[in-house]
């Protein structure tokens, strides 16, 4: 991608995503944290568009920004534990140091590796190909994940029911 417009768009979306992610972990208001989280999800969807993953961008918005964010906001309201807010524990600095060290290791590994980048152009539309892949090559994990959803559904109902 060397189109100057796309370059600007990439940096813009990245900045929004990172700032929103920092908001999630730094704000002391738990409702704000949830709103920042939606911002991160939307930003990541934008990144997916830049990466030619149109279907995934839609899924990201529907599942993450739609379902998971709503679920989290429901949980915040139902636990009514917002008075104390989103405080940090006493290990804020060790945690910060660990995160920075991890970032250094990751960036070191990423920049030192010569990635086997392909010269092929990406697919224009991905939905059809993804559908075929899911029902052919990845049929086994596809079926297992449906069993996983059943297990999670049973579990969530049993555990959260009041009795």
């Amino acid at each position, binding site marked *: 991608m060397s189109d100057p417009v796309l370059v600007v768009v990439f940096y813009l979306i990245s900045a929004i995503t990172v700032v929103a992610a920092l908001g999630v972990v730094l704000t002391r208001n738990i409702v704000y944290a949830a709103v920042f989280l939606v911002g991160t999800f939307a930003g990541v969807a934008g990144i997916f568009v830049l990466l030619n993953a149109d279907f995934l961008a839609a899924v990201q918005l529907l599942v993450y920004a739609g379902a998971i964010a709503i679920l989290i906001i429901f949980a915040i309201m139902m636990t009514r534990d917002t008075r104390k807010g989103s405080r940090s524990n006493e290990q804020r600095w060790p945690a910060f140091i660990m995160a920075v060290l991890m970032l250094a290791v990751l960036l070191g590994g990423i920049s030192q590796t010569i990635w086997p980048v392909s010269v092929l152009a990406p697919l224009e539309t991905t939905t059809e190909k993804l559908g075929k892949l899911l029902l052919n090559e990845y*049929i086994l994990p596809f079926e297992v994940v449906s069993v996983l959803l059943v297990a999670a559904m049973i579990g969530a109902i049993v555990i959260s029911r009041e009795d």
Partner: protein
Amino acid sequence: MNLYLLGPELSLIGLAFLVILVDLATHNKNVVAALAGIGLVVPAAWAVSLWGQTASSFYGALVVDSYSIFFKLLFIAAAALVILMSVQYSKRFAPYQGEYYAVILLATAGMMFMASTQELISIYISLELASISLYVLASFLKDAKSSEAGIKYLLLGAVSSAVLLYGMALLYGATGSTKLNEIAQAIQESMQRDQGAVLPAIVLGAIFMAGGFGFKIAAVPFQMWAPDVYEGAPTPITGFLTGASKAAGFAVILRVFFVALGNQAPLPVDWPALFAVLSALTMTVGNLSAIPQANIKRMLAYSSIAHAGFILVGVAAFSSQGVGGVAYYLLGYMFTSMGAFAAIVAISERLGSDQIADYSGLARRAPLLALILAICLISLIGLPPTVGFVAKIYVFWAALQQGLLWLVLFGVLNSVISAYYYLRVVKAMYLGAPASEEPLPVSRTLVVALAVAVIAVLAIGIFPQPWLDFGTGAAIVLIP
């Protein structure tokens, strides 16, 4: 696509759904437990009928070989023991017994998939099927301790999944594939191209994946979840976590490291040294933390961390003998820990306590129960004539042959330390004064579970050869 190869898993998932349906129709929950327990015969028989085959299906996602069948039978046996242990216990969550058994079966299916796939996406999904089911089972009592155990297990488990996934992503990025054999080939080619140098992303990815799997087997430094979760979870589930979930973790580690990452000559990274250090740390931390414990579930949690360390000795040997030893050890450890936890279920049912102090004089109130628990503890120390003895000898011997003398000495020293805290329980049972003379009756299903476990512990220990052959037959699939 060959559905016949998928038979054990398919029939198990079908059984889980049947259990839910029958649970709706009947008020007698013992029927549900009986269905779940007896129904396990179908997947077990199916798995046996596949023994000796080597086949793959579903575009290479599913592999059926002696290695996967070995672990499938191990998980089914563990599930059967958990169900037997739960018949009385599950009255505590009365309205949800059907769901309880169904989720146990689904967790077992997840573990079976884990042992029989060699593709990263399928490994991840089956790992999550087992994990999410176990998060639910850990919090099934729905009291403060159990739900805290559940949330700790879930949050730390999700973080470890994230680490595992990052490792998988790096490995996929560096090799362009998610199939273990293609990854192995790509690593080999890139090493040849770069004169033996390994891409840093591959090293990083492998270490991240080892960390993610290390959480599953509760190896240091990812062991911190185990004591709280084991203590808070329903006791039969604690047995399931130590016996089956740990074996599933090892099944995946062995396959990933022997098929994809350790298949090259020379090795891209000195894996044996890495595993040896992890092993020494894990057994020492587990044993030293077990000594001061007063709660027997917590003590056995630390003991299970220590045993992960002993099993890692066999992984560190990085030979077919080592892998055979690991398989045999996992089989023996499954029966031993299940037997111990069945005894704990029986005792806490009557005493209402898991404190070691309350076990005082138990030998007089329940002589047989005390004897069974003592045999299991002796097997955990690693003394003859139990399976624990042969298993330790075998993995230590495999390590010796690879020149890991220091690790073996470490292991022997640790076994001696561990005798102290296991024998403390035996001493309390046999030499302590009983709080009352009233005998402790044991329910019939628990008697069956205890009998099966203790007979297995003794039989596999006294006649080890067929079982060692069974384990070695599984191992040669990975390292000929």
